[in-house]
């Protein structure tokens, strides 16, 4: 990366199409699962699938997989900070 030009490994078109197929499959899965009567695990399952989908978008469409680690480290720091917000909010609400 020391040269002036931006070094980008050319990501093959096919990889994006494969990721997209995966995202569509997961969308179908999350809708299909929602028709089952799962009572307590509905939200958990939906959030798990959404997390996998957004990880795919972040890694491939948003190129985190091909960038230097700095970007992923920054994102993880933001997610952890957000985790602190959520934990503090629920600590508050759970003991009122």
């Amino acid at each position: 990366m020391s040269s002036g030009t931006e070094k980008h490994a050319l990501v093959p078109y096919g990889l994006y199409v494969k990721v997209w197929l995966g995202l569509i499959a997961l969308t179908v899965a999350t809708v299909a699962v929602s028709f089952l009567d799962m009572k307590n695990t509905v939200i958990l399952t939906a959030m798990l699938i959404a997390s996998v989908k957004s990880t795919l978008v972040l890694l491939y469409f948003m190129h985190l997989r091909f960038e230097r680690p700095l970007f992923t480290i920054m994102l993880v720091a933001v997610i952890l900070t957000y985790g602190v917000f959520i934990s503090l909010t629920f600590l508050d609400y759970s003991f009122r």
Partner: protein
Amino acid sequence: MSGEHAIKAHGAEHTEHHDPVANKIGMWLFLFTELILFGGLFIAFAVYLHLYRWDFRAGSGSLDKILGAVNTVILLTSSLTMALAIAALSRKKVKASLSLMAGTVLLAVMFLGVKAVEWGHKFHLDLVPGSSVMQNKPMGEQIFYALYYTMTGVHALHVIIGIGAIAVAAGFVKSGRCHAERPGLLENVGLYWHLVDVIWIFLFPLFYLIG
């Protein structure tokens, strides 16, 4: 503009100052603020879901899962065409890149169209915050709808801004100011577009699928 100053300051030995990594870091920092903006709304959703679990499930049951899923597929596909537009530009295929951007905008407009149909249907039923129909609903359902309009509304606003950003990037690509050796602008617009997609990936199940 700062590039011109750099040329003047350092004479001919430096060409224009250009730092693609800083460029991208700046964009990501902005995206983090977007994550926290929606993050606050998601926390509000989580708290009220926790307090009014059954009302939220009733509210969610009133939304059309299939329309929501169709919109998810539309937005995911627009993310694909955006990623392909950037891939095409880096292979110097300007025409293909512009067509893919046009496709992305078309899909974005379709997304807004479906959204308009959904909102229109709710308006038709007078399910609007403050209406008498709404005030007769249980408290949790009222909050569910308030969050539904706020969160999908702020998201739709991002889609509209995204359409504008893609149009600007397309203009730069067309005029040759954004090209294979310097694709930063298009890449950053792409990052914004994908983030809008990531947010929808969470909005969709939370609103449509918990019923």
